[in-house]
C-alpha cells in the first residue's frame, strides 16, 4: 500500500460524529493533517494549526471567528450549546460549506476547557460524486418512467402529448413536439409551464427555424441545436410562456424515418441548458422518437387494414321495398373481425323487381377465407342481371371458382325476394348449404325444401329452387353452420343443433326481422359461451306484420304511418 488517501484518516461516512472523549491537546492537533481551528464560546479564535492558517489566511489567535471564517462555520459555532463537555455531548453536529472553490465539512470537538476545536475536512470530491450519483439516479428513473409512458400507447397524438409533457416537466419550462407534415400541415403539440397540452395543425414553413427543417426531414443528420430565442416563430411558443430565454431543437430519430423534432424552451429568468442537460435531452429524444415512429407505423398499417377490410365486413341491412332484412355476424376468434361467412342484400331497382339475398360460407376461417368471400361477393354482384335463373348463376360462379387458384370451396344460399301486396315471395336455392327455416304466423317452423351441390368443387352442379310465401309476421331465416355447430351448453361439449334453432325460431312468429336474428344469435352465443365456435352468420327476411308505409330504418325521414 502506498500513502493512504486523506479521506482514510477520518471516516466521513459516520454521521454521528463521536469526537474523542479526551479532547486532543494542542500538540496533538497542531500536527494533524486537517486544518483545525479552536474558538472559545464567545467566538474568539484561540488557536489554529498551520493547515488552518493556510486555508484561512486572515485567521489568527485573537481574531473573531465571524470575521475570519466563513459564515457557515461562525454560525454553526454560535449554535453549539455552550458549557463543559459531557460524555453524551462531546460534539455538536457537523457543518458543511464552501471555502474558495472547495467544499468542507466542519466537525466540532469540545475541549476540556470549554472551547471548540473545528476540524475541517475537505469533502469536495465526495460531494460531487454524491450529487452526480443522485442526478444519474434521477435521470435513470425518469428515462425508465418515460419509456413505459411512451410505450403504453400506439396513438401518435398521444405519444406526442406524453413526449411534450414529460419534456416540459423534467427538461425545460415548456416543450413543443413537431411531427413531419401531414397533408401540407404540421402537427404541433405544446406543453406549457402549467402542464396544459395543446394540439394544433399549423400551416407553416419549418425551414425558417434553424435545425427544424433538417430534423423533420431527417437529413442531413443534425445534432441538437441552439436557436436564437428572438428568431422563434410564434407558432412554436406555448401561449402561456412569458418569454423565451433559451431554446434547443433536438431531432426525434425514428425507425429509419424521422419522427419529428423536440423543442425545449426555458424562460428568461432561468439559466440556459447545460451540456449534460442537452445530452440527456438527446437520450430522452431517442426514446420518444422510437415511440412516435412506432405509433406512426401502426397508424399507417391500421389505415391500410381498415381500407382493405371495409369491403370484407358484412353490410348493415335495412328494410327494402317493404320487406324487412336483418343480419348478424360473429367471426370465430376474438382477434378476427372477418371470416369465411358472408351475406349481402342487393336491392331490386324498384319494388317490382326482385331483391337478391346471398348468404354463404367459405371453407376455412380468418382473413384468408375472408379474401375469398370478397371474390365471391364481387362475382355475385356482377352476375346479378342473371339472378332470374339461380341455377345458371350458380353455374357461372362455380366455373369462376374452379378456375381461380383458390383451392377452397363454398356453400351458398340465394334468395330472390319480392313483395306483392302484403305477401312476400321468395325463390330460394341452396348451393350445398343447410336449408333456411321459415317461421309461420302461428309459430310452426318449416324447412325450405331446396338442395344443391356445393360450389367450387365439381364441374357440374345441380340445385333445386323452392318457392316460399311469407304472410305478414312470418320470417325466413338463413344461417351458416357456425350457428348449429356451436359447441357449448351447460356441460360444455354439446352442439347447439338444428332442433334448438327451430325451437328458438318457434318463439319468433310476428317479430321484426332484427329481433328474430338477435334472438337466435343470442341463444347460440350464450350456448357457445367461452367455447370455440366457427364463424356465425344469420339473415332474416321478414314480411312486416304491421301495415306501415315506411320502415324505421334510420335512413328515411322516420315518419311513422299508423
Amino acid at each position: 500500500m502506498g500513502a493512504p488517501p486523506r479521506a482514510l484518516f477520518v471516516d466521513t461516512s459516520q454521521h454521528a460524529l463521536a469526537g474523542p472523549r479526551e479532547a486532543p491537546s494542542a500538540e496533538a492537533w497542531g500536527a494533524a493533517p486537517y486544518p483545525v481551528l479552536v474558538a472559545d464560546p464567545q467566538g474568539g479564535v484561540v488557536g489554529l494549526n498551520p493547515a488552518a492558517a493556510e486555508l484561512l489566511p486572515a485567521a489568527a489567535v485573537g481574531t473573531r471567528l465571524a470575521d475570519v471564517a466563513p459564515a457557515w462555520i461562525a454560525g454553526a459555532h454560535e449554535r453549539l450549546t455552550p458549557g463543559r463537555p459531557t460524555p453524551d455531548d462531546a460534539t455538536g453536529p457537523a457543518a458543511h460549506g464552501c471555502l474558495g472553490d472547495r467544499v468542507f465539512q466542519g466537525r466540532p470537538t469540545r475541549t476540556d476547557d470549554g472551547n471548540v476545536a473545528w476540524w475541517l475536512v475537505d469533502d469536495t470530491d465526495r460531494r460531487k460524486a454524491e450529487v452526480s450519483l443522485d442526478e444519474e439516479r434521477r435521470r435513470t428513473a425518469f428515462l425508465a418512467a418515460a419509456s413505459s409512458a411512451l410505450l403504453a400507447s400506439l396513438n401518435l397524438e398521444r405519444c406526442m402529448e406524453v413526449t411534450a409533457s414529460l419534456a416540459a416537466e423534467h427538461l425545460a419550462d415548456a416543450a413543443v413536439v413537431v411531427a413531419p407534415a401531414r397533408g401540407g400541415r404540421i402537427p404541433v403539440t405544446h406543453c406549457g409551464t402549467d402542464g396544459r397540452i395543446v394540439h394544433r395543425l399549423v400551416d407553416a414553413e419549418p425551414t425558417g427555424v434553424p435545425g427544424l427543417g433538417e430534423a423533420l426531414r431527417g437529413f442531413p443528420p443534425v445534432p441538437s441545436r441552439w436557436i436564437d430565442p428572438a428568431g422563434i416563430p410564434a407558432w412554436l411558443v406555448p401561449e402561456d410562456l412569458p418569454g423565451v430565454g433559451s431554446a434547443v431543437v433536438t431531432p426525434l430519430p425514428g425507425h429509419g424515418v424521422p419522427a419529428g423534432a423536440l423543442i425545449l424552451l426555458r424562460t428568461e429568468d432561468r439559466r440556459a441548458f447545460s451540456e449534460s442537460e442537452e445530452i440527456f435531452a438527446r437520450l430522452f429524444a431517442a426514446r420518444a422518437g422510437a415511440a412516435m415512429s412506432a405509433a406512426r407505423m401502426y397508424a399507417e398499417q391500421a389505415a391500410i387494414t381498415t381500407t382493405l377490410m371495409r369491403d370484407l365486413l358484412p353490410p348493415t341491412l335495412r328494410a327494402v321495398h317493404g320487406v324487412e332484412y336483418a343480419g348478424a355476424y360473429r367471426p370465430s376468434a376474438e382477434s378476427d373481425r372477418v371470416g369465411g361467412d358472408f351475406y349481402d342484400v342487393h336491392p331490386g331497382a324498384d319494388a317490382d323487381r326482385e331483391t337478391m339475398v346471398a348468404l354463404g360460407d367459405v371453407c376455412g376461417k380468418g382473413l384468408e377465407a375472408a379474401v375469398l368471400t370478397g371474390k365471391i361477393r364481387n362475382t355475385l354482384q356482377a352476375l346479378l342481371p342473371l339472378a332470374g335463373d339461380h341455377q345458371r348463376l350458380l353455374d357461372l360462379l362455380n366455373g369462376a371458382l374452379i378456375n381461380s387458384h383458390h383451392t377452397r370451396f363454398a356453400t351458398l344460399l340465394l334468395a330472390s325476394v319480392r313483395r306483392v301486396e302484403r305477401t312476400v315471395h321468395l325463390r330460394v336455392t341452396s348451393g350445398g348449404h343447410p336449408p333456411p327455416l321459415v317461421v309461420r304466423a302461428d309459430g310452426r317452423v318449416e324447412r325450405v325444401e331446396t338442395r344443391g351441390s356445393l360450389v367450387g368443387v365439381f364441374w357440374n352442379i345441380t340445385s333445386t329452387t323452392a318457392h316460399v310465401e311469407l304472410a305478414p309476421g312470418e320470417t325466413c331465416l338463413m344461417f351458416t353452420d357456425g350457428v348449429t355447430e356451436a359447441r357449448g351448453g351447460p356441460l360444455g361439449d354439446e352442439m347447439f343443433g338444428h332442433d334448438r334453432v327451430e325451437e328458438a325460431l318457434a318463439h319468433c312468429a310476428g317479430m321484426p326481422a332484427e329481433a328474430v336474428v338477435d334472438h337466435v344469435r343470442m341463444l347460440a352465443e350464450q350456448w357457445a359461451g367461452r367455447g370455440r365456435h366457427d364463424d356465425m352468420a344469420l339473415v332474416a327476411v321478414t314480411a312486416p306484420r304491421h301495415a306501415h308505409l315506411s320502415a324505421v330504418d334510420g335512413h328515411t325521414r322516420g315518419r311513422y304511418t299508423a
Partner: protein
Amino acid sequence: MTVHHATRPDLDTVRDRLWTAVRAGDEYQAGATVLDAVGSGLDAETVLLDVIGAVQLRVGTEWAANRLTVAEEHAATAIHERVVAALAHHPEHRGPAPTRARVTVACVDGEWHALPARLLAEVLRRRGWQVDFLGAQVPTPHLIAHLHQTGSRVVALSATLSPHLPTAHAAITACQAVGVPVVAGGAAFGPDGRHARALGADAWAAHAREAAEVLDRGLTRPDLPAVRQTVDDLPHLTDQEYTMVVGTRRELLKETLVGLEDRFPPMRAYSDRQRQRTAEDIGHILDHLAAALYVADEDLFRDFIAWTADVLTARDVPARSLDPALELLAQRLQDFPRATRILASARETLATHSPEPRKPGDGQHV
C-alpha cells in the same frame, strides 16, 4: 329548430304507450310514440332514459315475473335498439355535432346486454361528446386496438351480469395500461359501485346522467408506471379458490347433477329439456359463485340466489329446490374456506327469503 308545445305529454302516458307497442311487437308504433314525444317537446335525453330506459327495465321485471318470454324480451330489446337508432338519425332530433373530446362506450366481452351502453352513448353524444359506440361483447383486444387508433380520452365500460366481472377487470387494466381512464357502469358493478372500485376502475356511475357528470368533471389519466397486476387489486386471489372453481366448472356441474339425481329420484325421469334447464341453473350458480370469489363479496352470491328464488317462484318452481344444489357444492368445496362461507350464507338467505319479483340490471344502470 325545436318547437315547444304548451302541453308536454305526461311521462307515464308516454311510457304506457311505448310499453303497449313493445309488448305487441309493434316496432312502428313504438317508433311513432317516441318521435311524437320528442316532437311535442320532451327532450331527447328524458325520452331515452326515462321512457325507453324505464320501459326496458319493465321488460326485465316482467320477464322475471314470467309474464314475458325470453323471445319477447329479445324482441322488445331489438325494438328499443331500432327506436334509439331512428331517433339518432332523425333530421330534426338527431342532436348536435360533436364539440368535445372523443370517448368510447363498450360492453365487456361476453356481455350481450347492449341497450344500457347504447343509451349512454346517445346521451353523451347529445351532450356534445364525440362518441364511438362499439356495441355488445367487445373483445378486449378490439377495444385496445380502437384506443390506439382513435386516441379516445375515456372508456365507458358496461357490464350487466356479475359473471363478467373478471373479464371487466382485464378490460379495465388493459385500458389503463395504454393510459386511458375507465368509468365503469352497469348492474354487474354492484348497486353502490363497490366492484368497480375493487377492480380499480377510475370512476363508477350509477346511471347515464351520472356517467355524463363524471365525464364533465374529467378523469385524470392513469399513472402508467403504477399499472398493476390482477393480484395487486385482489390479493385474495392468491388462495386460488376462484381459479379452482373456474378450472373445474364442468366437473363440478356434472357431479352436482349426478348428486341431485341421487337425492331426488324423480329427476331421473326428467326430459332432456328439463335436464338441460337444471344444468343451466347449476351453471349460473357456479358462474356467480366464481364471480363472488373473484371480488370476495358474499352479497353478490346471496343477491343472485335470492333473485333466482324469485324467478323460480314466478315459474311455479319451489325456491327451496335450489338448496340441495348449494348443499352438494358446499360438500364438494368444503376444503375451500371462502367458497364454504359464501355458500353457507346463501343457504341461510334462501331459508329465510320471501319472494319478491325483481331482476338485477336490465337497463337500470343508465
